[in-house]
C-alpha cells in the first residue's frame, strides 16, 4: 500500500466535533476571563469550568477530561501562557479537579447536583495549584498563608459556576441559539 500525501484524511466522529465545540466554548471563556483583573494571582472565576461541568454531567467524565485538557493547552496558547508557570499551575489544578470530579460524579444525582461537583472541583483546583506552587515555585510555607483567600474564592466561584451549570442543564440548551430568551 502506498501512502498518498494528497489523500491524508482524519476521520472525525460526532464525538470529536462535540468535544471540539465544548472546548472552543471553554477556551473562549478562558480568554475572556484573562482580561478580568484579579487582585491576586490564582483568584479567578474559572468560568470555563461551567462548560466542563456541563460536559461531565451530559457526556461523562472521559469527555470532560478531553475538553478540560484541550482548554488548558489551547487556552494557554491563546493567551500566551503556554509552558509559563501559570500554565503548569493551571494544569496541576485541572488534573486535581478532574480526579476529584471522577469521584464526585458518582455521588447520587438525586442528592448532589452540579453545585456539589463544582465546589469539590474548585477546592481540588486550588489544592493542586497551591501544592505545585509550594513544591516548585515558592518552596516556602509562606504560600499556605494565602490558602484561606484561595479557599474563600473557591467556595464563592464554585457555588456560582455550579449554579450556572445547573441552570444550563435544567433549561436545556447550553449552546447559544439565536432567539433564545
Amino acid at each position: 500500500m502506498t501512502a498518498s500525501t494528497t489523500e491524508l484524511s482524519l476521520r472525525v466522529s460526532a464525538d470529536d466535533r462535540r468535544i471540539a465545540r465544548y472546548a472552543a466554548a471553554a477556551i473562549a471563556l478562558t480568554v475572556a476571563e484573562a482580561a478580568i483583573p484579579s487582585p491576586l494571582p490564582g483568584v479567578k472565576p474559572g468560568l470555563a469550568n461551567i462548560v466542563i461541568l456541563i460536559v461531565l454531567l451530559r457526556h461523562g467524565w472521559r469527555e470532560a477530561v478531553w475538553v478540560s485538557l484541550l482548554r488548558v493547552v489551547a487556552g494557554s496558547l491563546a493567551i500566551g501562557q503556554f509552558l509559563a508557570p501559570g500554565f503548569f499551575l493551571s494544569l496541576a489544578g485541572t488534573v486535581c479537579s478532574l480526579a476529584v470530579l471522577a469521584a464526585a460524579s458518582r455521588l447520587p444525582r438525586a442528592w448532589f447536583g452540579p453545585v456539589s461537583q463544582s465546589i469539590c472541583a474548585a477546592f481540588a483546583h486550588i489544592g493542586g495549584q497551591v501544592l505545585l506552587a509550594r513544591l516548585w515555585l515558592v518552596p516556602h510555607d509562606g504560600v499556605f498563608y494565602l490558602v484561606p483567600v484561595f479557599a474563600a474564592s473557591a467556595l464563592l466561584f464554585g457555588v456560582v459556576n455550579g449554579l450556572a451549570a445547573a441552570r444550563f442543564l435544567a433549561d436545556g440548551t447550553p449552546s447559544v441559539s439565536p432567539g433564545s430568551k
Partner: protein
Amino acid sequence: MTSWRALLRPGDWLVAALAAAAVAVSFPLLWRGGPAEKAVVKRDGTVVAELPLNITKRIEVQGALGTSVIEVRPGRARVAADPGPRQYCVKQGWLTQANAVAICAPNHVTLALVGAKASYDSLNY
C-alpha cells in the same frame, strides 16, 4: 425558567456548608504567625541577644567570618550587614512576621522573629 433555589439539591447545601466550614477553619492560618514580639539573635545556636521589637536598636554580633549587624525597628528587624559571600540574609530585608528567620550560614548567625504564641515560653520574657 427554574428558580435558583430549585437548582440546589439537599446534598449541595451539605457540600457548601462543609466547604464554608473548611474556609472558616483555614482562616486562622492566614495569621498563624501573628504579630512578631521580639527578635532573637543566635550564634552557633546559642542566643546572644533578644531584642524587643518596639525599640529601635542596632547590635553587632561576632560570627565565624566577622561582624554581622542586626538592626531592629518598631515591628521589624533585619540583618543590615554580614560578611558572608552571598549575602542571602541581608537581601532578605526586613522581617515582620512571627517565625520569620534570616540565616547567615557562613557567619553562623541567625535572626528570628518570635511571636506571642511561640511554641516555647516567651511569657517570662
